[in-house]
């Protein structure tokens, strides 16, 4: 950020600055805080329990139950469906164009520092997949 830009930003700080960007050609900025516990991309076992509104409140990972401490953040990023799908039938009501991504900060009982989980939820099958975990 240049001096001019920092003056321009003015009185408000964009809360989205801390969200790492995935997709749409912009590269992800590494988390400033913790180290990667599990490299991104490895499909690891994870179970996510949500509340009535579909927002995660518990993440079960490697046997440990993590309780969500901050309101999770969710966004949708585009997929190249023409490369991965076999069929895109006209009657389908599910979006093939994007996938649902979550960033969840959850604390394991007894731990001092929360973990940040990056998850993707399959809109068709409601399956959760872990993209990566960072400490902090």
């Amino acid at each position, binding site marked *: 950020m240049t001096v001019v830009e920092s003056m*321009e*930003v*003015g009185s*408000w700080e*964009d*809360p*989205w*600055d801390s*969200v790492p*960007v*995935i*997709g*749409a*050609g*912009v590269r992800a900025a590494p988390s400033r805080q913790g180290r990667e516990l599990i490299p991104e991309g490895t499909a690891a076992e994870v179970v996510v329990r949500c509340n009535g509104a579909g927002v995660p409140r518990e993440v079960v990972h490697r046997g440990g139950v993590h309780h969500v401490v901050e309101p999770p953040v*969710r*966004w*949708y*990023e*585009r997929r*190249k*469906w*023409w*490369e991965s*799908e*076999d*069929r*895109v*039938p*006209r*009657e*389908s*009501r*599910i*979006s*093939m*164009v*994007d996938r649902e991504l979550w960033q969840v900060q959850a604390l394991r009982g007894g731990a001092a520092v929360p973990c940040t989980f990056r998850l993707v939820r399959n*809109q068709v099958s409601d399956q959760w997949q872990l993209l990566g975990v960072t400490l902090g």
Partner: protein
Amino acid sequence: MHFPHLHVASAFSAHYGVARPEELAATAAEQRAEILACTDRDGLYGAVKHVLACREHGLSPVLGVDLALLGAGRAGVAGTRGGQRRRPLPPRVLGRVVVLATGNNAGAGYAALCRVVSAAHRAHDRHQGHPIGLTTAQLARHVHRAAAHGKPGLVVLVGPDSDVGKLLAGRHYQPARTALERWRRVLPPGTLVVETATHLSPQGTPLSTGHAVRMLQIGHRAQLPVVLSNAVRYAHPGQAVTADVLDAARTLMPLDELAGADRGVLQPNGQGWLKDDDRMALLAHEIAHAADQGDAGRDRLLADTHHLAERCILDPEHDLGMGRSVIPEASVLGVQGNPDRELARRCYAGLARLHGHEDWDRTVPGLNRESLRSRLERELDVISHLGFAGYFLTVGEVSELMSEMDVRHAARGSGVSSLVVHLLGISPADPLEYDLVFERFLSPLRPNLPDIDIDIESARRHAVYQRIFERFGPRRVALMSMQNAYRSRGAVRDAGLALGLGAQDVDHVAGQLWRVPGATLRQELTRRPELAPLADRLRGNRQLDLLVDLTERLDRLPRHISMHPCGVILSDTTLLDRTPVQASGIGLPMSQYDKHDMDPMGLIKLDVLGVRMQSTLAHAVAETARLHPHEPPPDLDTMPRDDPDTYRLISSTHTLGCFQIESPGQRELIGTMGPQEFNDLIVDISLFRPGPMQANMVRPYLDARHGWSAPQHLHPDLTEILAETHGVAVYHEQIMRIMDRMTGCGLGRADVWRRLLGSHGEAAVEAAFRDAAHGRGYTHRTIDTVWELLHAFGSFGFCKAHAVAFAVPTYQSAWLKTHHPEAFMAGVWEHDPGMYPARLLVGEARRMGIPVLGPDVNRSGEHHRVEPVTPRPGTVEPADLDHGIPHTQDGAWGIRMSLNSITGLSAAETERLLAGQPYSTLAEVKTRARPTRRNLQRLAAAGALDTLLRGAGTRASHTDMVHFLREQAERPVTGRPPRSQPGEGQLSLPLGDVDLAGLPARLAEPSPEERVRAEMDTMGTEVSAHLMDSHAQLMRRYCATRAEDLLGLRNGTEVVVAGVRVSTMTPPMRSGRRVVFISLDDGSGAVDCTFFDEAQAVSGEVLFAPTLLLVHGHTRRTGPRGIGIQAAQAWDLSRPETLPDPSALLGSRPTPGRPPRRSAPERPSPRQVQPSAPEPGTSEPSAPASHTRGAPHDTSPHAAPRPWRPPPPVGD
């Protein structure tokens, strides 16, 4: 409170929106929304459909438009053709804004919206690259004008896609604030609103929550209301894929490229659907909390959105003028005083003009039992009662215009039933003469404005449109538009482009899809035998599989708007307040509303349809006048329609070129029916429609007509009604009369009842009918029988008035073909009115003994013309002409093809060629007409210069000349000035044709085959011989039968035929199975082949694509003068490796196969005198012996050949 979506693009935002307004309204209604907007891109294309859909679903409609915002014009250097020129560059698109119309102001908001849209299109020029849109200043002017009366008429939404939004996306906060400030300055108070939207896309991309937060905050900072939208493009998430494909189609780039380089075209994700309340509330919550405004911020956002929505609700009646028809002002029509009196005055003038010598009070014979005067007075009464006099005067005015221009015109449709229409000169047919019922057209029980459609000469229709515009003024007239939708082929191409498939693959798939509905493509692939190889390919290929899915998605989506071929809208000066207009392509403005929008919006539309047959008739009459200068030209419209020679021609089925009766099916019908008077023509045209054919009216009529079945008598009261059709109910008018006769309900009510037959309202009609008929004393048995007839008639049958309108030009064309065949055929070539290509008509002319003369640089004109020739004995054989009909000049008159028939010549060149006639040397052609060298070569190849060659006295051949000119054409341009250009006032030396005389004589004259090929190349049609002549040897090896020889064969003979495909049809069949009719032209006539399921299956791909076909099958008599082929298999002649062994083909199938068994008919046939009978075109052949079976009344002793009828179906 339910969330109101204010930024919604329907499918009518071409190449952008996915869901039709009906689907969006239904979705919104399911979500229990109350207000829904339609803001299509660049226009109000979906607006009317949106309002109607909202009304149906109980929603309140809002209308707006999504417009491009243009920068100011730029000066710059544009165009490199012819050097650098300082020309203003087209303006850049800075972004897009939404403009909404406010409601509750007597239409002021909607009118302003229409004008803003029209203004956005005014400067649009696709070729110069000027986009559709407005600058801020222009838009501001419109908003100011709309706010002139205190309340804002328009509201501008500045959202994420606007100039402000784009700056914020790039985080240029100061420039964004400046831009928004400028908006606030130029717009009046209360008309500027900020729009925020989030699609929850990743940070840094458009429509991210961060972006939405910035929009919210900038709006608050500028103290402007901020509303929430979802920038909707589709109704549910599954349609997001279609939006991607549309984006690819719009930009003509594959999806991979669009996604990779991130040009900002593709949506960032698939969240742009019509989200329900809960989701929108959640989004408001997220935005507000991310902006640190908490719940209060969220509530404020939602409240502001509601507030704006309520301001913009439009009332269909008071704001849009729906349901109120508007006609041009009386003064414009030349009417002073009472329009009813003026209409009566003009009608009586018409009476004097058309029926001057008749007694207007004499009852005209027929079922109407009215005199001219009583009928006229009755019609004027009804028109006056409904207040439609102005409309009739308007149409009468237009008809006058056409008469002044000497353009042939005739009303079509039920309007022909009206005597007023006839007396105003709009229709040449007298409804009393043909016993037509006025109530079929207009009655007090149907208060909608009727439709009067006018057929005019096709070649002069643009001139007529221009004249209408001049007459009524550009503020009162607009053309109608039509929406062109994706069909399967176009859908495949665009989907293939999006997927990045190879052009060859895509073309191959697209080529297979002939008349295949795209929406059910996957199903069709399994069902149709000719698509089987394609289906195989798909199984192994994921991309092709996706292609099918994408094709189904695109099918029938609106693709682009174009001018409707015949609709003209006439209104008073409020027209442009009620519809937006844009350029039509012919220099006249076009409404953005299509034919379905006319009635709801109260727009009067006149269908002025260019019909090529009318041009043909006009051309023929003009030629006849030229050839017989001392006789008055034939007056087609007033001549009596009873010439026996004409009917003889029609019955001979040699009706190629005639209106309506030249198709194979029609020729079969007239061959069987044998029309002898005009009423027969009317019946013929009525019967040959899907309705009557499906309802099994044809066979009973033919049987009754020929006396093979006794007409069933329903009741003495009804006999005279059905007498004209031999006891079979065919016409709508007959049904109306039966109902009225038995119940006394009146013909107006009868028409209402008739329209309910065949629908779910029929039960009520039945009850009313039975009641009333019983009340009049008819027995139950009679009532039952009659109701059975009415029920079977259902929604089938045909309107006699329509049939009369068609029968008139049918008769006129047949009359001309009988009495002035050369002039008629010249007209047919000139205007190409029929279903067959010109080449088939060349054969027809030859059959009639009319020589066809190729284009000649000295003798040809700009139109096809009749030219006297010296008949050369033995070269022209007038084949079977049926007692000397048509009346040709026995080869003394030929038809000279025009210079325009040579493709590739420019209009200017043709003009110069004609102006410089006559030519004696090639040099004269070059200097006077200055054709391009390539075109000079084409002229020579077409034979137009042969006359010069002969005149040059050289021994060089035609081929030498073409060769010479081709070499000249291929030599590169040297830039030297042309030699021997005579100066002004100088005569060229009479040296003779230096160029041609000096030609070395090296090559031989072209063979007939080469000549024909050259003619095909240059003119698209053969003149000197037929294309099939080059295959003559092949045909001999197969022992192929020529078309003209088929008639002499017995029914069921095994034959081989071949020819050029001239028509392919798959008409709807009663049984539901598909039958393919293919007509071939082999130079001696047309062969009509029928392919049933089995033949379709074995022929496969050959059925639809190839031009030259070889067909193996059996003859099938279709009438006393008709014969067709029931095909067993077809092959592509141009692929000799696929052809069967000639020695083994004929004889391999001595008897024909059976056509598929018909499924049981869904409706009981009106009278089961015979077992269920086939309609013409699908009779079964059988061994000749059974020919005589089942002809009960066939005992007449006359010497004429036994009247043909098909044997009853086997096994019934």
